[in-house]
């Protein structure tokens, strides 16, 4: 069974659907990129996948023993975080919280795992640094480490490269691709259609109607792809 199966789902606010009749599935090890114009329902879809919103109609099912709280999430930066006094270690460790249950503190095992993940993402030397003083790329890696602490199965990334320079963007994409190759399923919401085509294995292009779902090879040959890329400036 697929990790996530979305069948006939309508998503929206207060019963008013923005996206209707959405069908797709995500399998273990996939790298799905959700693209679409502003207001097309990308964030609504993401919030619904994360269980913060209910579907208006249809259903979303989790398979392969995936539980709601086993989703690692990389949200966009918030206003609060810009001057928040927190060390990198505190933030990464806070990703382990969903494994704590009623236990008030982190277990040794959780701490060790968090430190391993920090080592893997090359932020061990930043452990004691203050989060708000890091560069944008370093901050994203910290939040990525936190997301990995929350889940080794599925990562949901919300515009992970927003506001980063091209070099840092490229490195972050490479890091995400590597993590995906290590077996973590990735769902990324993005504006960056070119990166989506380059790195993702599957593409979901949503608009008022679900325009496209399939592998990136199919997507390159589809009509939706051409309009969306050309909206970005080229004239065909």
């Amino acid at each position, binding site marked *: 069974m697929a990790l996530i199966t979305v069948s006939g789902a309508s998503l929206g606010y207060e019963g008013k659907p923005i996206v209707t009749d959405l069908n797709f599935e995500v399998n273990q090890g996939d790298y799905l990129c959700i693209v679409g114009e502003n207001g097309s329902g990308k964030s609504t879809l993401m919030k619904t996948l994360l269980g913060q919103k209910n579907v208006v109609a249809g259903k979303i099912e989790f398979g392969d023993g995936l539980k709601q*709280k086993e*989703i*690692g999430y990389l*949200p966009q930066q918030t206003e*609060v975080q810009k001057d928040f*006094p927190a*060390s990198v270690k505190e933030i990464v460790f806070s990703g382990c919280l969903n494994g704590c249950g009623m236990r008030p503190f982190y277990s040794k095992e959780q701490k060790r795992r968090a430190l391993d993940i920090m080592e893997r993402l090359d932020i061990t030397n930043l452990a*004691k640094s*203050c989060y708000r003083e890091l560069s944008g790329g370093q901050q994203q890696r910290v939040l990525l480490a936190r997301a990995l602490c929350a889940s080794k199965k599925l990562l949901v990334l919300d515009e992970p490269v927003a506001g980063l320079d091209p070099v840092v963007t490229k490195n972050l994409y490479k890091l995400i691709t590597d993590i995906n190759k290590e077996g973590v399923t990735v769902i990324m919401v993005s504006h960056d259609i070119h990166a989506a085509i380059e790195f993702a294995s599957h593409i979901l292009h949503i608009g008022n109607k679900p325009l496209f779902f399939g592998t990136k090879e199919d997507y390159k040959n589809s009509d939706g792809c051409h309009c969306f890329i050309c909206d970005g400036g080229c004239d065909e």
Partner: protein
Amino acid sequence: MNIIETLTSYFSYPFVRYALIAGVLIALCAALLGVSLVLKRYSMIGDGLSHVAFGAMAIATVCSMAPMTVTLPITIVAAIILLGITGNAKIKGDAAIAMISVGALALGYLLLNIFSVSSNVSGDVCTTLFGSTSILTLSQTDVLLCVLLACVVLLVFILFYHKIFAVTFDEDFASATGTNAKAYNTLIAVVTAVVIVLAMNLVGALLISALIIFPALAAMRIFKNFFSVIISSAVIAVVCAVIGIIIAILYGTPVGSTIVAANIAVFILFMLVGKITKRS
């Protein structure tokens, strides 16, 4: 020598010792919560809730009921509404706080005037708002209640420290990964309300905001991780409370304002130290 003698003679009175114990405990609780509230952009909630508590106290006075039995539940309800309102409400957080706070203050004063129980309404109001002497008139039961509530606040803070951090730093992430953010926000709201109702006895309604924000803001000038900010803001609060009460006793100044003045001094000091250390 003279000062020490004066202090010793004052501390031989139980009501002075009670004031010191209660003052330190309330300042400590307010400072602990303050870190989370300031970071969540709820600095004004102390102000807002203390006005609500003032309004509730007016109701209690008019109905001649024990103040605590009316203020505590009403303030808790107001806190839950205010902290929970930001999500998808039509009136946003800061406007809601301003509305409830001004409304409660006005209605409270109106009630006190219409159904005036004592002959000196403005004197009563002044006492409630600025807490002029009430901390020196605490009974043993009041102090015990203070100790009990302070223990509860400390316990909540120790047991839920990591959860409070997660909910303060990133509510979206916390709730998306299975932490019940709403429950912890409600917990913070309830504890805040309890601390504010308690603190009204000490510094009065108007100065509670200062107890909540100054230690946290001062600590954030220098320290750069959550744990040290929490610890240092607790230490700052306790030190300022002790210094403030001692100065108030020695020079006969109002207790609440003196404690706040001490907090302001520490804030300025920390700000300067923070600036200097950053440059070098």
